[in-house]
């Protein structure tokens, strides 16, 4: 890994979904790391000095880790995207106030993921690597069925 790599952390108790997300991000050319339990999240926050550009975090983990997670994200300039299965207005207001970058409601599709990654990298001034892949409509077996104007 070098400093130009885009690193994505996926912190999510749903193992299958985490594996799929990591596979997808890897296929897009990013470095992704999946962690399935809160202990591992604590370890990453506590001792992993790797810089993650963004972290996809299940809302269960988000509310459990809250302050620690946001201190870590501020220290490493990591944008947090929360994933939720059954959000309420109150829970969305809570995450808005916490300062998360985006909120994805399950089930979400690959377009939404691509858009979020593109928006984060655009904000950070980094070029998205999957532009070319999206224009072909396929990423390593994933049917992106792309909207070409999404990613710049």
């Amino acid at each position, binding site marked *: 890994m070098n400093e130009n790599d885009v690193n994505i952390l996926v912190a999510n108790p749903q193992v299958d979904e985490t594996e799929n997300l990591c596979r997808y991000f890897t296929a897009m050319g990013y470095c992704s790391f999946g962690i399935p339990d809160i202990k591992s999240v604590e370890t990453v926050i506590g001792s992993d000095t790797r810089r993650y550009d963004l972290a996809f975090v299940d809302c269960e983990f988000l509310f459990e880790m809250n302050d620690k997670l946001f201190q870590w994200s501020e220290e490493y300039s990591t944008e947090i995207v929360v994933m939720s299965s059954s959000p309420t207005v109150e829970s969305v207001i809570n995450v*808005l106030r916490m300062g998360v970058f985006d909120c994805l*409601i399950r089930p979400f599709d690959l377009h939404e993921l691509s858009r979020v990654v593109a928006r984060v990298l655009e904000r950070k001034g980094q070029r998205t690597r999957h532009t070319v892949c999206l224009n072909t409509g396929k990423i390593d077996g994933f049917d992106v069925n792309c909207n070409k104007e999404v990613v710049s």
Partner: protein
Amino acid sequence: MHERSILIVDDELLIRDLLYDYFNSQGWKTAIAENGEKALQILDEREVDLVLSDIRMPTMDGLVLTEQIKESHPDIPVVLMTGYPSVETAVSALRSRVVDYVTKPFNINQLYKIVEAQVSSEEDHQENSDE
């Protein structure tokens, strides 16, 4: 000391008047607009520390207004309020980078605290970047 200023955008006269009187009584320079177009016009004419806007309004809703404010005045924080809260509008608000989403009916003291905290935080941020 810098006089704080707020732009209140709501199509309901009662809410506009209530908020206008309250913020004025707290020493704020207060502007009001009954729709998004008027709000954008005011923002072009004067400096505003924060925009407090309703979401559901005719012609231009608060979410569209927020998008336009973020394009033309990206540093002005926006607080949205709504009497019709939903997950969809809350997520859209989050994506538009509003600083808060307040549901009606609101407690005016709590709403004031939210606005005041945001403006104070912006002032601190500004002071730190000036140093």
